[in-house]
Structures are given as C-alpha cells and as structure tokens.
C-alpha cells in the first residue's frame, strides 16, 4: 500500500446529485465519498458524511438497493454574516445496488466523527441438500 502520510490532501468541491427525482424541499444535495470493500463474509461501506448527526441519517436496504441519506442543518447562527463561503452545505444522498444477498438482521451501522461505517454481512448460502437416488 502506498505511503499516504507524505501526500497532501487536495481541496475538492462537492459534487451535486443528478437524481432522476426532484427534491420536495429546497437545498442542494451532494454525493458523499465512499469506500466499499468486501471480505469473504461481509461487505463494508465507509462514507464521509460531515455534519450529519446520527438521528438525521437514514439507511435503507430494500430489494438489493442500499440508500444512504443524511440531513445537514445549515450552519449559520442567527446573527452571523458571511464573509466568504468556500464549500456548500447540503444534504447527502447516494444509492447502491448490492449484488449479494445480505442478512438484514445483522447489519451494523456506526457513525464516528462524521464517517459512517456500515457492515453488511452476506447471507449464509444455503447448503445444497444432497439427494440420493435409489436404484430401482
């Protein structure tokens, strides 16, 4: 694995969602950066969701589509004036199609420091039942 400690982070603007359906509320919606990796037994997803509190995060897995959606409150206090704004604040939304069957009961989600860690255990494949054929 490359040594990342010497590399400098580059500033990036957030990308807006180009969703087929429109939002009912006003505001920008952004695509969060995610890392997805899998082991033999689980699929792991790590998403950067700064500003999303645990209660504002919705995770839904339905018919093999995983939907992540997080609300972010606007940051200004009531009396504040903007001097400059380099990044925009808005909701996060992203959908994935999960190719494997997931054991929904054992899904774990954790939100630490604005990073969502989602563990999706793969469903145990049913062991094929061996059928013996009796010779006639």
């Amino acid at each position, binding site marked *: *694995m490359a040594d*990342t*400690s*010497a*590399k*400098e*982070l*580059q*500033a*990036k*603007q957030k990308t807006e969602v180009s969703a087929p359906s429109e939002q009912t509320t006003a505001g920008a919606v952004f695509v969060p*950066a*995610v*890392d*997805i*990796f*899998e*082991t*033999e037994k689980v699929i*792991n997803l*790590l998403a*950067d*969701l*700064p*500003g*999303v*509190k645990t209660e504002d995060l919705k995770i839904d897995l339905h018919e093999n589509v995983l939907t992540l959606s997080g609300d972010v409150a606007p*940051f*200004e*206090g009531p*009396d*504040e*004036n*903007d*001097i*400059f*704004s*380099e*990044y925009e*604040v808005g909701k996060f939304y992203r959908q994935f199609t999960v190719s494997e069957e997931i054991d929904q009961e054992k899904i774990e989600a954790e*939100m630490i*420091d*604005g*990073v969502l860690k989602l563990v999706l255990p793969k469903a145990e494949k049913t062991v094929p039942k061996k059928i013996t054929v009796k010779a006639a």
Partner: protein
Amino acid sequence: MFMRRPFYYPTMGFRTSFDELERMRRNMDRLLEGFGSRSFLPQTAGVFPLVNLTEDKDGYYVRAELPGLKSNELDISVTGNTLSISGERKIANEGENIRYHRREREAGTFSRIISLPGEVNADRIEAELKNGILKVHIPKAEKAKPKQITVR
C-alpha cells in the same frame, strides 16, 4: 458642453445622456450576478480544507468539513490575525484479504492559513470538532468591535 465623466465619480449635478446608460448597465450587472452566481466556481484558495468564514458583532466563526479526524489529530493556532489549521487524515488499512470496489475517500496531510479581516482576541478562542465539522470561534478584540453611537 458634453463631458464624458468616468462612471465612478459622484454626479455633480448636471446629467448627460450617458448617465442613464451607465445606471442601466450597473443594474443589469447586479441582476445577472444574482442569477448566475450558483453555476460559477466560487473563488477559493484551492487549499484543503475549504472553509466558510462568518462573523457577528462579537467574533468570527471559521467552519471546515473534516470527517474522520479526532481532535488530537488537528493542530490549530493563531498568530496575530491569522488562523492556521493543519493535521493529517489517516485512513485505516483494512487488512489483507479484502477487495475494494470503490475507493473515493482520501487521506493525507493538510495545512491552511486563513487571514482574519480584523483584530482578534487570541486568548479566548474556542474550537470544537463535532460530527466531522470543525468550528472555531474567534472573538474580536475589544477595539475592533463595532461601537454603537447614540444620536442625541
């Protein structure tokens, strides 16, 4: 006599027909600014992390999105009127037998200096890192706060 006066000089009483055009042009510019500003790229320093700087009458607020950082991995200091934010974002190495499908999050070092528009009181700075958002509150120096003047 027709004198072509530059538009930034205050009008001195007599109007020429060019004034009307200048005024219309300025108003059109202002209108278009309002419509178009969302699609243009904001002018940023292009340095990570991007910050939003706001103020109220008592202080400045600097906010940055720094997910995945703990407060002890961040280094914030103030020198004169500049705020300096630096640190390193680490992403854990997840192990040997894994296959990545997506790798979008980045790790690395960052260092940024932000100049504050006025004098500040460096002793009472507060910084908070919560849910991946860093919020630094920098109170203004007493002499830089706006003073209310009562009119008798």
